[in-house]
């Protein structure tokens, strides 16, 4: 290379720490009680080491690539990945039941992991185009289209978790000018959603009526505010009733139970309450009946996860010593529930340090993104940080029992080739763009 590489070494060091820590934890979750420390490539921790190697090669290639390549080929990559998703959907419909991966030898390639990367590129490219700003109906619609299309395709593969991740692009749009009111509206809708499930809908509507009524009374001279209050009341009531309907009638029992388990509800008690006129819409008997297995498993996962983490106390049991981990009591512990191992083996202090390091990496990326001189790099940087943040937030929240059990991996930590490689590509593509920030300035001069 002719020029010195101005890569952000802090991010690289944090990345390496997290990846190695991940492999250690996978080893712990994966190996038996008796086994001596050794590398076994037939086991998952062995494979993860291979994935780290592959990631390292890809990272190296990205750093060697000319930074202009990403801007240039953004749409191309997007179209290829969308194509792969469509092919999967088509073959899936042939093979009964959706498949989320391509099989290459003994490895499975999950295009949905790469769809986030491609979407980040395409969105950056579109918003980075010289005359496009995130304002005006057409531009806003296209921006949302770029996000929603792959989201829909992922959803059609029954991969609800991965599809939800696309929601994090709203944060990017917020940075690019989307009104903060939209975020507040989102939080409001979510809050109403939770209360609707927990309380009788009639009570919520009455509460809304009282609040809006008082608001109208005190602002009765200001016509506009009265109109606003009435609109908010009508829209919210309609929303509450539709939620009630969707939850009772449209969601499948296992979906209902996932939500209930997260909200700390006893599933059987809940159904009993609901069938006693708690809900306006009757829960169908047959739906309640088919429950059991899946229900038990969700609450079981969360319960075991909490027990594992709780077992860690202040400093944890130490590497490879977690009894819960060794007993393999937490299902999916090497993938979605990898944080349980951290909690049990490194305790409160270790877990806190881990969370701090992880948030430092994400914060660092946001900071780097903001200092970008061109829109393409900035949008891509915000996308990278937001994707990582969403995964981190949902994954740890789930392990701690405060968010629904949504099966998405913890980036750089969870076992899995597709996820490790795609997140590494995401991070290092941005770091490469950031490294060329200097060139950008010099060229402008």
């Amino acid at each position: 290379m002719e020029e010195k590489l101005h890569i952000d070494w802090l991010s690289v060091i944090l990345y390496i720490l997290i990846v190695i820590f991940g492999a250690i934890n996978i080893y712990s979750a994966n190996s038996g009680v008796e086994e001596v420390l050794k590398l076994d490539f037939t086991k998952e921790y062995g494979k993860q080491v291979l994935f780290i190697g592959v990631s390292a090669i890809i990272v190296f290639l990205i750093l060697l690539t000319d930074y202009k390549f990403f801007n240039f080929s953004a749409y191309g990559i997007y179209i290829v990945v969308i194509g792969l998703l469509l092919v999967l959907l088509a073959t899936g419909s042939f093979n009964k039941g959706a498949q989320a991966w391509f099989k290459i030898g003994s490895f499975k390639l999950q295009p949905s992991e790469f769809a986030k990367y491609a979407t980040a590129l395409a969105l950056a490219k579109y918003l980075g185009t010289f005359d496009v700003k995130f304002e005006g109906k057409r531009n806003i619609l296209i921006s949302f289209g770029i996000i929603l299309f792959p989201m829909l395709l992922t959803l059609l593969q029954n991969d609800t978790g991965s599809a939800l991740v696309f929601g994090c692009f709203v944060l990017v749009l917020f940075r690019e000018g989307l009104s903060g009111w939209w975020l507040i509206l989102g939080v409001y809708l979510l809050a109403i959603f939770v209360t609707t499930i927990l309380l009788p809908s009639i009570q919520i509507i009455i509460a809304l009526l009282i609040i809006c009524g008082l608001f109208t009374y005190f602002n009765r001279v200001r016509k506009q505010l009265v109109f606003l209050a009435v609109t908010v009341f009508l829209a919210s009531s309609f929303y509450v009733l539709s939620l009630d309907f969707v939850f009772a009638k449209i969601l499948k029992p296992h979906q209902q139970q996932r939500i209930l388990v997260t909200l700390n509800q006893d599933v059987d008690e809940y159904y009993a309450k609901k069938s006693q006129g708690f809900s306006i819409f009757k829960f169908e008997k047959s739906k309640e009946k088919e429950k059991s297995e899946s229900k038990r498993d969700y609450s079981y996962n969360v319960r075991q996860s909490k027990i594992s983490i709780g077992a860690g106390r202040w400093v944890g049991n130490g590497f490879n010593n977690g009894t819960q981990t060794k007993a393999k009591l937490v299902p999916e512990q090497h993938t979605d529930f990898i944080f349980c191992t951290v909690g049990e083996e490194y305790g409160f202090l270790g877990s806190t340090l881990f969370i701090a390091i992880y948030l430092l990496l994400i914060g660092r990326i946001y900071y780097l993104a903001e200092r970008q001189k061109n829109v393409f790099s900035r949008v891509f940087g915000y996308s990278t940080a937001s994707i990582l943040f969403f995964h981190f937030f949902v994954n740890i929240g789930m392990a701690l029992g405060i968010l629904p059990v949504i099966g998405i991996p913890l980036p750089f930590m969870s076992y899995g080739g597709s996820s490790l490689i795609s997140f590494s590509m995401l991070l290092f593509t941005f770091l490469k763009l950031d490294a060329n920030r200097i060139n950008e300035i010099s060229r402008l001069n």
Partner: protein
Amino acid sequence: MEKSKRLYVFIGILVLIGIVFICRLFYLQIIDTSNYYKAQAYGSNEITIYPARGTIVDRNGKLMVYNDAVYDLMVIPQKAKDFDKVALCKELMLDTIEFNKRLKKATKYNPREASVIYKNLPFHLYTRLQEIIYQFPAFYIETKIDRRYNINGAAHLLGYMGEVTEKQLALDKYYKPGDIKGITGLEKSYEIYLRGKKGKKVVLVDKFSKQQGSFAGGKFDSLPSAGQNVISAIDLDLQVFGEQLLANKIGSIVAIEPSTGEVLSIVNSPNYDPNLLVGQRRNKNFASLLLDPSKPLFNRALKAPYPPGSTFKTVQALIGMQEGVLTPDTKYPCHGGYHMGSITVGCHAHGSPLDLKSSIAKSCNAYYCYVYRSILDNPRYNSVQDAYVKWTQYLNSFGIGINTGIDLPEESRGIVKKPSWFEHEFGKNWRSSNVVSMSIGQGQIGLTPLQMANIAAIIANRGYYYTPHVVRSIGDQRFVPPSFKQRHYTMVNAMYFDTVIAGMANVCSPGGTASRTGIPGITICAKTGTAQNPHGKDHSIFIAFAPRDNPKIAICVIVENGGYGADYAAPIANLMIERYLSKDRSLPSQKPDMLDRMLKANLTGKSTTVKDSIMIVKPK
């Protein structure tokens, strides 16, 4: 806000989420120690220790029901991998298909919890398995208790045990699959007292599931506490005697102590041996009892409503006096029966006219046709219908047409029709003449033997009763449910009972309807009855209490197809009373011929209508 300043919003969210997660971690790992202890419990096995179920003794302390240990083979399905299935099946003498079926069922219930895979291990298998069970870490033997009965009767009263159903498992967290609980009788109604509290022992196990000793110094262990013993009101000697008397007959006997409401015996015939319904052969025996055409499982005493026949005249007389349409001196003529228009109710030959007292002793049908019609046609009421409703209220106060509330499951209310039933049958303005057969306890009226015995108790008490109860007290503290001590008064004033009792006192004396059955030295107040049976020979009925002053026993005997009340029911009742009142039960009966005749009588042989008689006593 300038867009580049929005970076601070992002940083703010990150810090906020960090704080929330760390607080949650602090709660889970430092504050809430329960998770820590749950984690410690890994590498340990929880073993349930079953409490001894309470025993049941009779009123004199004789043991009726006790326990015996049985052994079940348990499995934890999740751990049941990589074991020598063929070897285990060979030991258990099971084929692998059946074994797999059971394992699948256990897995379906809950793969992480223990379920029974082989119930009631025979003793030789139990000893053999103890030697080899360590080779099968997912399996262990659990000791449970099973019931044993000291008697071969009283089955309906004691009830039987059975495995909990899935529905009950969901309702009551006490039970787990394979547990047994009371299904009928006392075993069911006193289940919560009898079952006790389960204990548990948490033991450390090594990786081969071998027990390595107590976990955490026994901190999480709890001892079982045995179920409470139940002291029954039943007089076992009287119960067995009653069963001997009813052998080879269909019917039942209920005896109550009037001053307390304690049930002294409940005899059903046909009966069965309660020991048939325990242990390995339980299911097979249960099936054959269920299919038996004589219906041995049917609890006649509590569930079969019979027309009370002439015993009902006592109730009619009491209501008539309270309503003011009848006095002890009221006389009605009888010339071979009651004739009014197209109605004729026949009567046997006796002097005429009779007063109230003699009408009971002689059981005059005509007399009660007059009494009942005067009750229903009482000008105090706007209509016959209103008078009828009032009459049914009287009946309810006698425990007729309502549940008596006895402490046994599955009681019938008997049959008392609503006015609307008669409207449907005879038109809107039906008259007292339409229902005249009820004057003498026939037609649209049905009482269970328990209800009839309760009437005898009410008359003995001169106007009130205690809810009949089979249990005297519970546990070492001799707990008596307060409901047992509560008096239920009838709507009839105490002063009206004397005349009826005087009449009943003459039933077993010369001139009475059961004159030949009396026991020397005991004043038995009684009433005979005969229930018409359209399907065969009439049912013989008898209610009685004795002695006249300070009554100790009230009784009802019903013998299906036994003919007149005096034929079978009266002698059996008198023998029961004699037995109960005698100071020494080993003394021979004063009426050895009568006793011999009753013991030998076989009515099931000549009755060809066993099924029919059951059919008609069934409520519609």
